[in-house]
């Protein structure tokens, strides 16, 4: 393998190197369990090892209490020698807790952080809790950028050993107001986002439209945009996502293909592979993020079939 010389990396993470070197990135995701064990994390980490550039760990996804994303991230580093992408939501922590958790995460070797608003607590299993939202996702991104680049906390005080994170954000091309979505992404990039993982794409046309706007604003030149993809294994699930999940758009074609398929699971893999290939053709898409919610074990198959192996090493 040709040795690549990197200059001025922001974090030096594997994911950053893949993206900076212009290779099509590929990340996976593991939802930590709702109990005190690493069992599923270990299982899926083994499956994904060598197949993905980094693994996202969701942060109390859908506002359900789960093993923490930083705890899962450390497990991945120490037990599996793999690279996590630590998700942080604004719902559960104030700026003090966030910064303190991130100092520890960095000291333990976490290099990628994905900043999110977080699902509203009404979706989860503690709907009566008091949410925090001390800072929003744009402010969180900016807090991390200042920590990294200016070596100071949100309050302005100096941080002697500053965490140098590769800063990520999400964006939902399917939410409303549609015309504002690319502008919102621009704000996140302006605030300091280096890479983007989009909400899962189950309506390719809408995504292409979104990418048009992104290119108009030149955002693909300022941040690495990775397309979020989700293999959906049952037609029922697809229909539910079409009608029951706020902020989601699922094309009729997508649902019907799964409904007509003799083997919906195989079709789900086919669709995801096709979508990966389509994303590779879209100017400005730098990689894919595969979130196989409750179906993590399929990720290696998808990646292999899409011809994304072997993954680059540095």
């Amino acid at each position, binding site marked *: 393998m040709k040795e690549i010389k990197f200059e001025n990396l922001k974090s030096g993470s594997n994911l950053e190197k893949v993206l900076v070197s212009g290779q099509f990135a590929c990340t996976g995701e593991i939802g930590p369990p709702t109990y005190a064990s690493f069992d599923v994390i270990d299982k899926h980490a083994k499956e994904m090892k060598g197949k993905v550039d980094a693994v996202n760990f969701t942060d109390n996804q859908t506002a359900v209490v789960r093993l923490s994303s930083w705890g899962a991230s450390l497990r991945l580093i120490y037990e599996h020698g793999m690279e996590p992408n630590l998700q942080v939501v604004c719902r559960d922590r104030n700026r003090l807790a966030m910064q303190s958790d991130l100092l520890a995460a960095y000291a333990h070797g976490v290099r990628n952080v994905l900043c999110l*608003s*977080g699902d509203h607590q009404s979706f989860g299993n503690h709907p009566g809790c008091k*949410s925090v939202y001390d800072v929003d996702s744009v402010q969180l991104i*900016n807090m991390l950028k200042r920590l990294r680049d200016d070596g100071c906390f*949100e309050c302005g005080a100096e941080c002697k050993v500053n965490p140098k994170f590769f800063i990520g954000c999400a964006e939902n091309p399917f939410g409303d*107001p549609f015309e*504002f979505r690319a*502008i919102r992404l*621009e704000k996140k990039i302006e605030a300091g986002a280096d890479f983007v993982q989009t909400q899962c794409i189950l309506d390719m046309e809408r995504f292409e439209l979104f990418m048009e706007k992104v290119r108009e604003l030149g955002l693909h030149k300022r941040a690495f945009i990775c397309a979020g993809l989700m293999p959906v294994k049952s037609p029922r699930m697809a229909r539910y996502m079409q009608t029951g999940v*706020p902020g989601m758009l699922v094309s009729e074609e997508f649902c019907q293909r799964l409904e007509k398929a003799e083997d919906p699971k195989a079709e789900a893999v086919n669709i995801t592979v096709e979508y990966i290939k389509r994303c590779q053709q879209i100017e400005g898409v730098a990689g894919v993020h595969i979130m196989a919610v409750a179906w993590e074990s399929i990720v290696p198959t998808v990646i292999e079939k899409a011809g994304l192996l072997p993954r680059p090493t540095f």
Partner: protein
Amino acid sequence: MIVAERKPIEKVLEMIAPYKKVLVAGCYGCVTVCLAGGEKEVGILASQIRLARSKNGNPIEVVEQTVERQCDAEYLAKFQDNVSSVEAVVSLACGIGIQYLAEKSPVPVFPGVNTLFLGANLDVGKWAERCFACGDCVLDKTGGICPIARCSKSLLNGPCGGSQYGKCEVSKDVDCGWQLIYDRLKALGQLDKLKEIIPAKNWKRDKGPRTLVREELTLERD
């Protein structure tokens, strides 16, 4: 205004169970406007209490009185005679009035309402939250629509990913505050305002319970 709603009668009866003579104290301010604790509601609650207690063979004497504002010492003084003749008070003022009355009362004061939020009267019988009293108003940046009170996550820099068809991810019955802000700014030709990154907010909680002292007024009084 401060919007409140009456506590269920059972709760009120529970609070005053040990007493034989109580005052139901109303307020002509916000709670009168939102029909939770004005003179009329005082009358209704007083009758409910009397009726329930006499039915139980445990009669109670209920005194009724309503003043201009329970959040103002000047008007609270008017309760003096009544509070010194009863064993307990049920106040139908907002949480502020209840507390202020309790501060001045020799007998226990109980809440007869749940204080809900700072809101507007949208229609007959309909109120909705509009302000969180954050202490640093940003309405100039958001088309006069409060992102803190009207976005379910109090986001300051635009809508989360759950906004769709004008509704908030929390419920199809809740408007997305950020969609409202977007529409309003668009109508005003001020969409460029949304590009500004609003920095992390100072929630102004660093001095404990918030107070306001206006020197020029205190001087005037002296």
